[in-house]
């Protein structure tokens, strides 16, 4: 039985801010960038109202935001921040250091295009640029998922088997700014779920002084640290699932790293991440009514990538379309496509697969476009198209 919750009509950003407040971070670094800004603005109100004990650090850049988070996390604090686009790119160096120093920082990213040309709207260019920085990465489809993911992130990041930074992402404007219906846990239930953080090696523990960020480039120790980091993110998959199951029980909202719709007998499947999954389900539902065996597979956790779960889900499917909301210039396809196709390699019978780059810089993802993808999949299965093509969906 799920606990009692309040239903609210609000934006994804406000839901993220609420989840952060309920997690009681000791330090938050704040720097504005659209469309993330309303998260840190909302948090500034909590600070002004005296509702949080958080030390709110209004840094002068995203680079310093992540630098301060690293310092605070190493000091032993629970630490959070939020960013987007150029801000995330500006943090890139620090993202590696946060994971390398095993700082369990929680950060929200409002997914947004990267310049040039400048564009403030949604795509996944920013987050995909950070996909190999050693962070656990969640994608949210809705304001509800943005909230749920944030609360779960705290538990995953601080789990002793993990101790890695976690990014919870939501699509710029689409999820960050539009009013959505969502359910909010009570402060008590949320606090009980996230628990408190007791660091093992804190800089502020002056009785047991520790050195963080030492020089390890001689004698292969750097190599060993990186291997330990890989082991940690691999271990995080089980923790993500366990925390997800616990959260599902508390909230009544099921959680899995991949979430299927109509997958039991699907022949034509779209794989999507983020807000577009909703559009895909809407079209798939209409197709089902017409007798087309359409399915949707949403990937909710992108790092670590759920290879086994994806392969298992699309077993027996005739044709798969992978939607990528970012480019990987010069590669075989978009970042999600590369992962999915890699997951397919070890399968005995592989479905046909096709890649679509769509919605860059906030370009509309209309239902007709999704319909076109399903039409293509039927053609693909009938041998009209060849497999593996890259399609720019909806581009003039």
């Amino acid at each position, binding site marked *: 039985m799920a606990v009692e919750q309040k239903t609210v009509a609000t934006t994804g950003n406000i839901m993220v801010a609420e989840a952060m407040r309920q997690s*009681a*971070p*000791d*330090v938050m*670094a704040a720097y504005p960038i659209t469309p993330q800004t309303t998260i840190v603005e909302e948090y500034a109100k909590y600070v002004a109202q005296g509702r949080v*004990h*958080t*030390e709110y*650090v*209004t*840094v*002068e*850049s995203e*680079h*310093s935001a992540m*630098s*301060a*988070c*690293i*310092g*605070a*996390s*190493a*000091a*032993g*604090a629970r*630490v959070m921040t939020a960013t987007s686009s150029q801000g995330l790119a500006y943090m890139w*160096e*620090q993202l590696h*250091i946060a994971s390398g*120093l095993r700082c369990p920082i929680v950060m929200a990213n409002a997914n947004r295009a990267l310049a040039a040309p400048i564009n403030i709207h949604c795509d996944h260019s920013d987050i995909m640029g950070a996909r190999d920085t050693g962070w656990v990465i969640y994608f949210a489809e809705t304001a509800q998922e943005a909230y749920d993911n944030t609360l779960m992130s705290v538990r995953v990041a601080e789990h002793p088997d993990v101790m890695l930074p976690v990014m919870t992402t939501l699509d710029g404007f689409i999820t960050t700014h539009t009013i959505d219906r969502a359910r909010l846990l009570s402060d008590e239930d949320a606090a009980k779920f996230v628990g408190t953080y007791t660091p093992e090696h804190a*800089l*502020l*523990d*002056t009785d047991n*002084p*520790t*050195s*963080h*960020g*030492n*020089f*390890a480039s*001689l004698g292969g*120790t750097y190599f060993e640290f990186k291997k330990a980091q890989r082991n940690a993110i691999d271990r995080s998959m089980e923790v993500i699932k366990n925390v997800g199951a616990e959260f599902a029980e508390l909230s009544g909202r099921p959680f899995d790293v991949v979430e299927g719709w109509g997958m039991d007998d699907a022949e034509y499947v779209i794989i999507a991440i983020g807000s577009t999954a909703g559009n895909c389900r809407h079209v798939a539902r209409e197709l089902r009514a017409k007798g087309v065996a359409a399915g949707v597979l949403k990937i909710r956790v992108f790092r670590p990538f759920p290879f086994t779960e994806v392969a298992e889900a699309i077993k027996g499917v005739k044709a798969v379309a992978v939607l990528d909301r970012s480019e990987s210039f010069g590669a075989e396809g978009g970042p999600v496509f590369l992962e999915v196709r890699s997951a397919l390699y070890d399968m005995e019978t592989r479905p046909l697969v096709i890649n679509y780059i769509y919605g860059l810089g906030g370009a509309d993802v209309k239902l007709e476009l999704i319909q076109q993808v399903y039409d293509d999949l039927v053609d693909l299965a009938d041998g009209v198209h060849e497999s593996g093509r890259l399609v720019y969906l909806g581009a003039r």
Partner: protein
Amino acid sequence: MANIKELSHNPEGLTGGHRLCAGCGASITVRQVMLAAGGTPVVTGCATGCLEVSTTIYPYTSWTGPFIHNAFENSAATVSGVEAAFKGLQRAGKIPADKQMKFVAFGGDGGTYDIGLQSLSGAMERGHDMVYVCYDNGAYMNTGIQRSSATPFGAWATTAEVGKAQQGKVQRRKDLTSIIADHGVYAAQASISHWKDLTNKAEKAFAVKGPAFINVLSPCPRGWRTLPSASVEIAKLGVQTGFWPLFEVEDGHWRQTVKVMNRKPVTEFLKPQGRFKHLFTPENAELLEAVQGEVDRYWDYIMRRCDCEA
């Protein structure tokens, strides 16, 4: 202010056995600054550079207290975060409200004057209770003596070469101490040659509630092309020639802390250093005068701000 006997009873922040060069000004700077913290526990942050790589080779460390290195340009921002955590955790009751701690960040001139200026300025403006110490050796020494904005006019560096068309660095040195002083924080310029002046300033900086900055002249035998045994002597000449005036800015009041009677010609500071060798050829006589002119200009400027007779 503590005398040398009292200082000698204070705990050392940096132990011997580190791998810095003999005669390195940075280690002298650190030891003097850390002694001034008295018995209060200090968390130290360090920018990437000689000081950091030579003292923290995994699995060893030369730092007796908590230490953090993050990257080259952000020791100020990183220590801001550590200090913020202290406040946040105290407010949460996870650290006793009466616990005292100090926070210090060290960076070389490259990591402070150049790439780290934004993060330093941000930390000073936000008012974190921390001390930032720049050990100024006038170049990127860790990467092999490239010019920084702290490199003096006329000095040789591997990216400010000496040849037919150019005689070392063509621009003058950035005046970082004044820039930071104008943030309205405690700011001082010190030298490893004047230990009493330096430790007094460090004591004040640690005592200030809020940010403080000290810029310390720290010779680098490798980059300055000098003997390791000459570091302190050359730093002293830097002060006596007026190349490096010793002053502090407290509550907006500028004060010369070590009077220099009969300022020596700058050539006495330049002569022992291989990086200025080319200035002493007959065809560069004008350039040598220009160096003196630049030192005089800066001296006059600082003395005016200190309201002293130049």
